């Protein structure tokens, strides 16, 4: 054993989308504070395999906080107790010996559970497909420096573009709203000169898709931005609303 932390885990287990789930309790010992939260789950899974039990399914990939795959709801907070950190970057030094840790999947109608802690977030892809792009075919582009972009705009666009699409904003929101996610993409493109031509249709189409997927509305609680591992600001929601109203008033059809 590498460390000396003893923990009790309460983990959501659910065989598939058609069956009901339940919380299961597991004891873990010898956890090191240098382990990441997911490495602690690796230890749990190895232990379960030795005992002949099914390991816990969870989404994860890059384990460096950028792919957006990991998605655990830890002690009532998406990605756990720290701010600005994904589950994979959370380390066990944020917990202490003897703790009980409750781990659930993202909970939202638009994110159905596939198995255990794994949910289906393809609704996000469909929102992007509805308008989260600039319609430029390969080969159409002019020289990159022929479009100067003020540094402040480029920086603000980048800040919005830093969204990793993990869904923590939805999981944190009491309405399971996807406004922060959707507005981040709308903002990124609305802040750049290249995005202007499609601003109106983009806002209308992406918001329509967001509603169709079953995400809730925004009541300005701010939980989304507070829990966002990438610090995406609620200003983006305000900008999206402006774009949307301008588009609704200004459309010709």
């Amino acid at each position: 054993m590498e460390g000396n932390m003893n923990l009790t885990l309460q983990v959501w287990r659910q065989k598939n989308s058609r069956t009901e789930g339940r919380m299961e309790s597991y004891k873990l010992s010898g956890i090191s504070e240098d382990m990441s939260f997911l490495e602690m789950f690796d230890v749990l899974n190895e232990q379960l395999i030795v005992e002949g039990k099914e390991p816990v399914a969870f989404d994860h990939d890059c384990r460096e906080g950028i792919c957006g795959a990991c998605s655990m709801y830890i002690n009532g907070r998406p990605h756990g107790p720290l701010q600005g950190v994904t589950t994979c970057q959370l380390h066990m030094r944020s917990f202490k010996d003897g703790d009980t840790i409750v781990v659930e999947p993202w909970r939202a109608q638009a994110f159905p559970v596939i198995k255990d802690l794994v949910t289906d977030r393809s609704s996000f892809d469909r929102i992007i497909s509805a308008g989260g792009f600039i319609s430029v075919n390969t080969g159409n582009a002019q020289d990159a420096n022929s479009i100067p972009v003020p540094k402040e705009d480029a920086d603000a666009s980048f800040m919005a573009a830093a969204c990793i699409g993990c869904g923590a904003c939805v999981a944190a929101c009491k309405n399971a709203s996807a406004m922060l996610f959707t507005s981040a993409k709308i903002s990124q493109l609305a802040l750049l000169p290249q995005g202007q031509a499609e601003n109106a249709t983009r806002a209308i189409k992406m918001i329509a898709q967001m509603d169709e997927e079953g995400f809730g509305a925004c009541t300005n609680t701010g939980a989304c931005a507070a829990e966002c591992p990438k610090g995406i600001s609620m200003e983006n929601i305000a900008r999206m609303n402006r774009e949307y109203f301008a588009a609704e008033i200004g459309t010709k059809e």
Partner: protein
Amino acid sequence: MATSPKLDAKIPDGPLESKWTKYRSTVPLVNPANKRNIEVIIIGTGLAGASAASTLAELGYKVKAFCFQDSARRAHSIAAQGGINAAKNYQNDGDSVYRLFYDTIKGGDYRAREANVYRLAEVSGNIIDQCVAAGVPFAREYGGLLSNRSFGGTQVQRTFYAAGQTGQQLLLGAYSGLQRQVGAGTVEMYTRHEMLDIVMIDGKCRGIIARNLVTGELERHFGHAVLLCTGGYGNVFYLSTNAMGSNVTAAWKAHRKGAFFGNPCFTQIHPTCIPVSGDHQSKLTLMSESLRNDGRIWVPKKQNDNRPADQIPEDERDYYLERRYPAFGNLVPRDIASRAAKERCDAGYGVGTSKMAVYLDYYAAYERYGKGEVNKRGIHNASHDQILELGKAVVKEKYGNLFDMYKQITGEDPYVVPMRIYPAVHYTMGGLWVDYNLMTTVPGLYALGEANFSDHGANRLGASALMQGLADGYFVIPYTIGAYLANEIRTKSISVDHPAFVEAEKEVRDRITKLLTIKGTKSPEAYHKELGKIMWDKCGMARNEQGLKEAIQEIRALKKEFWSNVKVMGDADEFNPELDKANRVADFIELGELMCMDALDRNESCGGHFREEYQTEEGEAKRDDEGYMYVSAWEYQGDSAWELHKEELNYENIKIAQRSYK
């Protein structure tokens, strides 16, 4: 030496500078009406896959794209940090297509193909244009124009970047383009799907067998052509900077069905990664090479010096890269920086509790940037602390996310104490052998991006992986695929009830059944760890004949044990990450053996391949151009059996020289 008749690289005739321009103007075309009837399958949605999928769909082909992740946006290109190279010469510092070409060939230690690399340099500028037009928010200067930084192995500033998240921004740009086509119905997207075999009909690749990872169902998909954009195989070492899911399975299945594997032993060990902290470690985290722009690498001059970094005075520090390579200093290429770190640590000068680390120190950068800020803001009589604080703010803007990541993982604040770093497996230059069209030795089967072997020789320069992925997908394959598909316009869509599909699916099903019924005692993870240890110890940063021979025997024994003792939980007809993992580990084991054979064959040191028997007196890699100026292309011939084919490398435009960065 003569090139094997089985390897026709199809390099166009004519002078280097006009090969590509002439070729793309004469390569056969498929007319728009015929494109609508031609189906292309793309495996993987990283930079190469996503850019190829959207571009081919824009051209009118019917595209099906597959990824094992839950969304195309999560492909591992997302994690690339530092930047993307392009010969724009926006800095007016002497850059050109030729210089990017030259740097890449030299950086690859003269083991890459001239024509491919020149084409890569030629299209590099178009990539930046395309990405900016698509809304990628690159870093900019106050005048609104694009900013550049330096990277290893070059003396110009040609790297475009978006903080330390360039890969993320480029991938999201390519992903947006892909999703636009998905929305338009021209690309059918299959997420959480893993390709488990290719289907061969009459000597051509005609489709794939994929497993739906949610339901476990096996699916058959027909395609006139199949593009593997599946990334590298660094996870054969278990610990690497690759994502947990990155694997060689698609490429390996293709290899077993006839695609030759090129230069499998050429792996890149990245010099600046966060050191291993314990046995629990599941992956290693890169600290971008861009950090070597401003950071200085050092160890104490005294062996086993246990003093904290800030108590070691300046004259007792050994800035060993600056000492050994004054011309390039901390910006030497990755292979050289990695070996130099290993040399210091092996000699007893390492730092930290494990002593397997060196310092990456930003103190000088804080002072330098801080003084610049003081001048800019017109602050007089600034205190030293004030200068440092201002300098830290500048560094935070450039590299903030990387510093935060370091702090999360190590629990140490890199703004206060120097970072500790050590080399780790990062990238694989080797991959499926492809010709100038990016086609493998299997007709109709292509490999793009890191999955092919073609552009980086024995060592890749920083910020060139993103360039190659997007070059292949946006600007190469859309043209070169015409050379094959123009002859396929009369091929009607083949029914997936064809016996070849039935047979391929049965093979896949039998293997899954076998994995699930062994019911042994050890998890796939445990075997992966064992394989990784063998590979790192004997086929890692330094290799020798005896070690490689031992490794081959150990891997064969491991393979035997795996197939009689692996324990895979769960069932075939459900979401089962353990089964996915077992499938991948089984392929990694076979690949590991081939990598060791390739390393054993290459009796020279070049780039990332360092054979201890072949080094100069100063410990630098000693190439053997007489004996080994070739691409090794291995043909699978059955269990643990391969035949080596050689493609001779001809340098007509570059003078071969001993690679020097001194």
